């Protein structure tokens, strides 16, 4: 009488699975094995689809067969997942560092007329006058617009702001009148900068239109203020994107392994291998 190769259980008849230890009593035949290597063409999705046949070897239990079939896929998925999580962690850490970094600049001080070049200052302006209305209107987004700023204590400063910083803070007015339309003083943070030749020529051309003769030695170059937050946000979004994409691809890998495991379990249950 034939015996189970694993537990020695004697049986007669055409059993495929040992009733005692649940091991396979015979291997699959070569036709099943050839089937497992092949498939068919699916015109609906224009892809080749693998057959769902599984090969079981004599003496193998269901658990061992599942492990044999899925081992490589699970290992690949884990390695890929590890790489994705490392990349995600690096991006998240750099994003958090960017948000929390105090910045290299010292705390700004209140602006005075004799503030030295390179000082970080803060100037509270209750009115802002662009040097030339036409110049302001036509300024491209990345251009510096020069304005006279008047402080609450009636001090004046020349301020260089970007178009975006000006946008929404002005109403259209005629040149020479107050242009700032805010309920509260406008806090301008920036660095006291020496007026270079390029800035000077731009300021002078505006002055000529106003028939003024003014050559400022220094002006306040306003901070954009948003670069740190913007970079941090971009890094955070990038890290979330990497995480999402990685999880999607991982789930496809695990789904494939689960499907193959299900085929093996079905083969054992129906004793069809």
């Amino acid at each position: 009488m034939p015996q189970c190769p694993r537990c020695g259980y004697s049986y007669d008849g055409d059993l495929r699975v040992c009733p005692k230890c649940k091991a396979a009593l015979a291997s699959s035949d070569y036709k099943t094995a050839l089937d497992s290597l092949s498939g068919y063409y699916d015109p609906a999705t224009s892809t080749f689809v693998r057959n769902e046949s599984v090969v079981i070897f004599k003496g193998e239990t269901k658990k061992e067969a599942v492990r044999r079939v899925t081992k490589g896929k699970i290992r690949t998925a884990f390695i890929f997942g590890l790489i994705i999580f490392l990349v995600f962690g690096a991006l998240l850490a750099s994003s958090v560092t960017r948000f929390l970094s105090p910045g290299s600049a010292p705390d700004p001080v209140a602006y005075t007329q004799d503030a030295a070049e390179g000082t970080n200052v803060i100037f509270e302006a209750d009115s802002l006058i662009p040097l030339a209305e036409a110049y302001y209107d036509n300024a491209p987004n990345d251009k510096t617009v020069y304005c006279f700023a008047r402080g609450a204590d009636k001090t004046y400063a020349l301020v260089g702001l970007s178009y975006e910083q000006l946008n929404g803070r002005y109403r259209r007015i005629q040149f020479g009148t107050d242009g700032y339309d805010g309920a509260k003083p406008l806090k301008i943070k920036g660095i006291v900068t020496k007026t270079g030749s390029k800035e000077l020529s731009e300021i002078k051309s505006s002055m000529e239109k106003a028939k003024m003769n003014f050559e400022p030695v220094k002006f306040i170059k306003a901070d954009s203020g948003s670069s740190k937050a913007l970079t941090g946000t971009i890094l955070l979004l990038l890290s979330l994107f990497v995480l999402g994409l990685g999880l999607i691809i991982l789930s496809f890998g695990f789904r494939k392994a689960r499907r193959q495991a299900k085929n093996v379990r079905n083969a054992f249950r129906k004793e069809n291998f």
Partner: protein
Amino acid sequence: MAFINIKKYTAVGAKLTCISPFSQQETEAVVVRCCSKLGFLPSVNTDFAIVYKDENKPMFINASQYRYIVRSGSKTKAVHEVTRALLIETLKKTQGGREWIERFEFQTSKFLNKPSENNAALA
């Protein structure tokens, strides 16, 4: 499916004559790369296969085997080698598997050693 009429998402590679592992007969075959797209995602599943004309069936191979065939000088020989390796790996422990492998090896050596007509295939 019309043989070698696979247009979407596939790259059709070497076309050759070889011994089919399914029928053990001489037949035409083509090496293909098939990518399955899933909705808006790019191809996450790339399958490589040798498609045999006689039974219109693909035999799936992995990426390194595909690269071996593509880079080899004699595609016919490379396809036979890859097929033999796959058969040994899968059929070795199955019922009737060893005999099938021996028959395939016999047919392959007869085909590859055929004089003059197959010199072009071996080139």
